[in-house]
């Protein structure tokens, strides 16, 4: 492991050097990635309402899907030529390394650790960690978290962060997925569900949940969502960044936020500043 990490570190130094030299080249995209001449293969979440969800008609909806569709459009790929693939959280790095997908838009936070294995474009959204609680209840401040029965997903960073930064002895239940947590929240066995506010808003915005849940509005740390790319694909990175920039400006981005997360009372923030790759 140690050996692998150090080689990865060396590689990322190279990457930085390459990125620096690649700066400035800008040609309006015609084809992106190496997933064939025409289409694109994009990794998204399949079970995340409001972000990336496979619905009963086998169509995909959500904020991440809208971002990916827009970016693909800018790269010259029509929506019907996009092949969606499920990118489950623990698989994302592997999918990019193996070339299973051209890029990934799946609530993928930009972290230094991940940047040793993959590259990012964006960020396209700055999410913050928050709590989802039953409507009508409230969590005053971060100190109150210690008294809550908290639920999160096994192996997620959200739970770890809460324990490290805010509430050491919090009573934590971990499940395989958020919908299991939601059952507990609905029935009172847990008091709050913690993860990024985008994911939480996605659940709260579902038609069946109208008026049932709300966000606590605490700021428990920021997550910069980026578009995951194969390591050092600076050309694609440039193109996607340009596409995102355009999306921020022409209002399509704000519209996508409003459409997918708005129903949960989510205020559309300012578009983030693109930091990757330049």
């Amino acid at each position, binding site marked *: 492991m140690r050996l692998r990490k150090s080689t990865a570190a060396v590689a990322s130094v190279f990457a930085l050097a390459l990125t620096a030299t690649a700066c400035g080249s800008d040609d309006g995209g015609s084809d992106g990635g190496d997933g064939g001449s025409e289409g694109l293969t994009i990794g998204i979440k*399949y*079970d*995340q*309402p409001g972000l990336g*969800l*496979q*619905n*009963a*008609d*086998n169509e995909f909806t959500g904020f991440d899907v809208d971002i990916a569709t827009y970016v693909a459009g800018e790269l010259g790929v029509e929506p019907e030529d996009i092949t969606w*693939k*499920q*990118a*489950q959280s*623990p*698989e994302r790095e*592997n*999918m990019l390394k*193996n070339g*299973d997908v051209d890029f990934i838009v799946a609530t993928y936070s930009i972290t230094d650790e991940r940047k040793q294995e993959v590259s990012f474009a964006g960020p396209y959204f700055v999410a913050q960690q928050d709590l989802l609680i039953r409507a009508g209840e409230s969590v005053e401040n971060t100190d109150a978290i210690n008294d809550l029965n908290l639920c999160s997903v096994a192996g997620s960073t959200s739970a770890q962060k809460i324990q490290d930064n805010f509430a050491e002895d919090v009573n934590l239940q971990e499940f*395989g*997925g958020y*919908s*299991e947590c*939601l*059952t507990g929240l*609905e*029935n*009172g066995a847990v008091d709050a569900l913690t993860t990024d506010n985008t994911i939480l808003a996605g*659940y709260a915005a*579902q*038609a*069946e*949940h109208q008026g049932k849940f709300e966000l606590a509005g605490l700021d428990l740390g920021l997550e910069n969502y980026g578009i995951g790319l194969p390591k050092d694909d600076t050309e694609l990175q440039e193109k996607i960044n340009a596409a995102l920039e355009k999306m921020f400006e022409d209002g399509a981005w704000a519209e996508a936020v409003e459409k997918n997360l708005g129903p949960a009372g989510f205020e559309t923030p300012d578009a983030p500043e693109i930091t990757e790759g330049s």
Partner: protein
Amino acid sequence: MSNLSVLYDAPGPKAKARNILYTVLFLVVFVAVLWWALAAMADKGQLDANKWSPFVTDSRVWTTFLLPALGNTLKAAALSIVIALPLGAILGIGRLSDHRWVRIPCGAVVEFFRAIPVLLLMLFASALYVQFTDISSELRPLYAVVTGLVLYNASVIAEVVRSGILSLPRGQTDAAQAIGMRKGQAMTHVLLPQSVTAMLPALVSQLVVVVKDTALGGVMLNFEELLRSVRTISANYGANTIAAFTVVALIFIVLNFLLTSAATWLERRIRRGKRTTGAVVTIDPTDAMEADQLGRPAIKTKQPSTPDEQGRLDG
């Protein structure tokens, strides 16, 4: 079990009254528990129509989520049993070999994989594929689940094969040798063909174990099987986890019940048949939960009833 009344006297008027009393008491307690559970669920809104109706009114739940997931479950189960069969047969025959250098390693492999939880095998296989191969992330869970199931079930099947062959009358081997067959020939031409019919019911019941174990891969390795589809369904229909879960559990029960019935039917048919020895290898009831191991074959061979067995409770 036709004759269990041997455990109690034919009920007289008093006993009949008592039995009725017990029946009523039992029924009352049972209904009370059921009522309480349903009331609690209704109270929490878990019985709301919108949580359950998709499974009846919206056929897309089946076509988009449940049936493809069931397909994956069956695919993993079928692959596992198909790969495990020849492997198990080799191991089982190897354990009967006259050569110690074949017999002992085969025995060691069988005992090793039977002693380890199948979940550990799956986790191990998954990690192995991540580190040493570049199988795409979509296929890896399937590969890992199948690998785990194959390793475990091959060793169980090895025991089935071994006891299937041992169940044949000694005369079969003697006769084969008498007409000048070699050991290998006797195995492939005489012993195996006969023992296969005896083993069939056990193999079908083993399929139940395999189907049940695929669910583990869904929860722990994100393999897209039936139990895992609960998550996608509940993401679409407003966290109807309990409803989706109940439906999935029912599908599992029906599927396994069909397999169990098939095994029983096969067993009965074979035992009735005149053309076989009538011996049937059954996996002990205990073994259907992956039980047997360590020296004692829990897999039993039932011979057609002998005088010795008559006069027992089920005789």
